C-alpha cells in the first residue's frame, strides 16, 4: 500500500512505519499497565510522585520521539532491511531449544546440544570438531565455576548425577 507524501515527489511505502507503530503500541501498553499499578498512600508519597507517574512520563516522551521518528521516516524512508538467512533464524530457534532443554533436561545438556547444532548450522562440516567443542567447552567451564568459583548449578539429569 502506498501513501502519497505531501510534497508529492515519490510515494512512501507504508512498511517504513511498522517500527514506529510497534514502538507506539509498546508505549501504549506500558501506559495501560502503569494505570493498573497500585497507588501509594499520600503519607508515604508526600510531595513526590506516584510509582505509576514515572513510567507514564517516560512513555509520553517515547510517543513524542516516535512522532519525530515517523516524520524522519516519511521524509527520508529508511532502506529496506534484507531478510536474514537460515543461520540467523536457526540460531534464534536454538535459543528456544536451549530453554526447553534446560527446563526439562539439564542446563549443560542444553549448552552442549545448542553448541553442536550452532556449530553445524553456521557452516562447520567436521562432525568431530563440532562434537569436541560441544563437549569440552561446557565441561571445562563447569569445572572452572564449580571448583574455583564454588558455583552450584541448577539440578538436572547431569548435575544430579554429579552432585549426587
Amino acid at each position: 500500500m502506498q501513501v502519497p507524501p505531501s510534497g508529492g515527489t515519490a510515494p512512501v511505502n507504508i512498511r517504513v512505519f511498522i517500527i514506529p507503530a510497534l514502538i507506539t503500541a509498546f508505549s501504549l501498553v506500558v501506559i495501560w499497565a502503569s494505570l493498573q499499578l497500585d497507588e501509594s498512600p499520600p503519607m508515604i508519597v508526600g510531595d513526590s510522585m506516584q510509582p505509576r507517574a514515572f513510567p507514564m512520563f517516560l512513555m509520553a516522551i517515547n510517543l513524542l520521539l516516535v512522532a519525530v521518528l515517523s516524520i524522519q521516516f516519511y521524509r527520508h524512508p529508511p532502506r529496506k532491511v534484507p531478510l536474514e538467512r537460515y543461520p540467523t533464524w536457526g540460531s534464534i530457534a536454538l535459543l528456544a531449544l536451549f530453554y526447553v532443554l534446560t527446563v526439562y533436561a539439564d542446563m549443560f545438556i542444553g549448552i552442549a546440544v545448542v553448541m553442536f547444532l550452532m556449530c553445524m548450522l553456521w557452516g562447520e562440516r567436521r562432525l568431530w570438531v563440532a562434537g569436541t567443542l560441544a563437549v569440552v567447552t561446557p565441561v571445562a567451564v563447569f569445572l572452572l565455576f564449580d571448583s574455583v568459583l564454588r558455583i552450584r548449578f541448577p539440578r538436572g539429569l547431569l548435575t544430579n548425577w554429579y552432585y549426587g
Partner: protein
Amino acid sequence: MLEALQSMGSVILDPYLVLLIVVTTVLGVIIGVLPGLGATTGAALLLPFTLTMSPVHAITALATIYVSATFAGSITAILINTPGTAAAAATTFDGYPLAQRGEAGRALGIAVVSSTIGGIFSVIVLCIAAPMLAQVAYEFRPPEYFALTVFGLSMLASISAGGAVKNLIGGIFGVWVATIGAEPATGIERFMFGNYELYEGLSFVPVFIGLFAMSELLVQSKIAHHVADTISMKAVKLPTREDYKRIWKTVLRSCGIGTFIGVLPAEGATVASMIGYAEARRWSKNKKEFGKGAIEGIAGAEAANNAATGGAMVPTMVLGIPGSGTTAVILVGLMVHGLRPGPYLFTEQVDKVYQIFGAMLLANIVFMIMGLYAAKAFARISLVPTPILWPVVFALSVIGAYALSTSLLDVWIVLIFGVIGFFARRHGFSVAPIAVGLILGEMVETNLQNSLKMFEGDWWLIFTQPLAALFLVLAFLGLFGPVIFSRIVRQRD
C-alpha cells in the same frame, strides 16, 4: 598526592596484580582482534569470573580488558580491513590502504605508539581530574544529580550508530527497564507480573550480556561463512623520526579530543576516534593523502580512542554515570564488588581508586609491548572460524549470567535481551543507549523524587539551582543545539 603516587606505585609490588594485568591484557587483545567481540562484550563476559577476586583486582581486570581491547581493534583494522572493535573503524580508512602498500608494520607501529600515548595521557588526566571533580561533586544534591543524569541521557543523542532519535528511544527503553521491580520509595510492584524474582529489578549483568554478547552472536550469524583476506607483514616497525615529526601534533590534539569526549557521559571511544580522525584530516597539510594511507589518520583515530578510555572512567568513578558502554559494565563491577561509585569513593577508598589508576597505566605499557612484539600472532587469532568462536561465546554468556546470582531467570534475561538487541540493531537502533539508560534509570527517578520532596512538589525550583540549571541547559543544547545551529547557519547563508 604522595599517598596517591604510593598507591599507584604499589601496583608493581603486587606480583599477582601484575600477572593479572598481563593475562587480561592478552585476553583483551584477543577479544579486540576478534571481530564482533568488543571491549564491552569482553568485559561483560569476564565480570562473572571476577567474583572471587578482591575489588581492586576485579576492576583492574575489567579496566585492562577495556584499554587493551580498544587498542587491539586496530590490528585487524589494519591487517584485514575489519575493525575488531567499533572504536577502530576510523583506523581502517588509512590503516588498510597503508598495509596494502606493503607498509603494514609501519601502520601497526604508528597505531601502537599513538594508542599508548593516548592511553597514558588519559590516565594522567584521570588521576588529576577525578579528585578535582569529586570535590565539586560533594556539593551535589538530588536536583544536581537529577539534572546531571538528564544531561547524561541527552548525550545519548549523539553516540555511536543510529540516529539521535533512535538512540533516545533506546535510552528511554533502558530507563523503563530500570523501573521493573519494586519502586524504591514505596515498595509498589511495577511490571513484575507476579514474578517475585523481579522484586529487586533486573540485574544489570545479564541484560548487558544479552544486549552485547548474545545480540552480537545473532548479528554474526549473518556472516557465518565470511572468510577474511589477510595482509602479510614481517614485523611491527616503530615510527621513524620523520613519522614522529608528522604525527606529534595530531597525537596531542587527539589526546585532548579523546579525553574530553570520554569524560562526557555516555560518549565513548567510537565517537572519539571518528572526531580524532576528522580533526586530523582538517588540520593536515596532506588532506589528499587521507583515505590512501595517511599516517596522521591512523595516529589521530588511535590516540583519540585510547585517550577516551581514561576519560570515560572519570564520570564513571566520580559520579556513577558511565562514560561509555564498557564503563557501564565496569560501573556494575564496582557495585558488585562493594565499591560505591561516587565522590565518596575518593575519601573512603582512595587507595583502591589509585591502585586501579596505576593498574590502568601499567596496562597501557603492557599492551604497547604486546602490540610491538606479538601483533602478528594476535592477528592470526582473528582467523578463528566464526562457527567455532561464537558457540563458545554462547556457553560463556549463559553460564556467566547464571553464576552471578545463581538464578535461571538471569539466563532467560540473557536470551530475551539478546533477541531484543538483535532486532533493535537490525532496524538501526544501537544497544549502547539501552545499557546506559538502564544504569541511569534508577538514578534519574530517585533523584527526581528526592528533588520533589526537597522542594515540596514545586519541580520548577530545580531550575533555581545554578549547577542543576547549567546541566539542564547543556542537556537542552545537546538535544536541540545541532538543529538550532544548523538553522542559524542556513539563515546566514
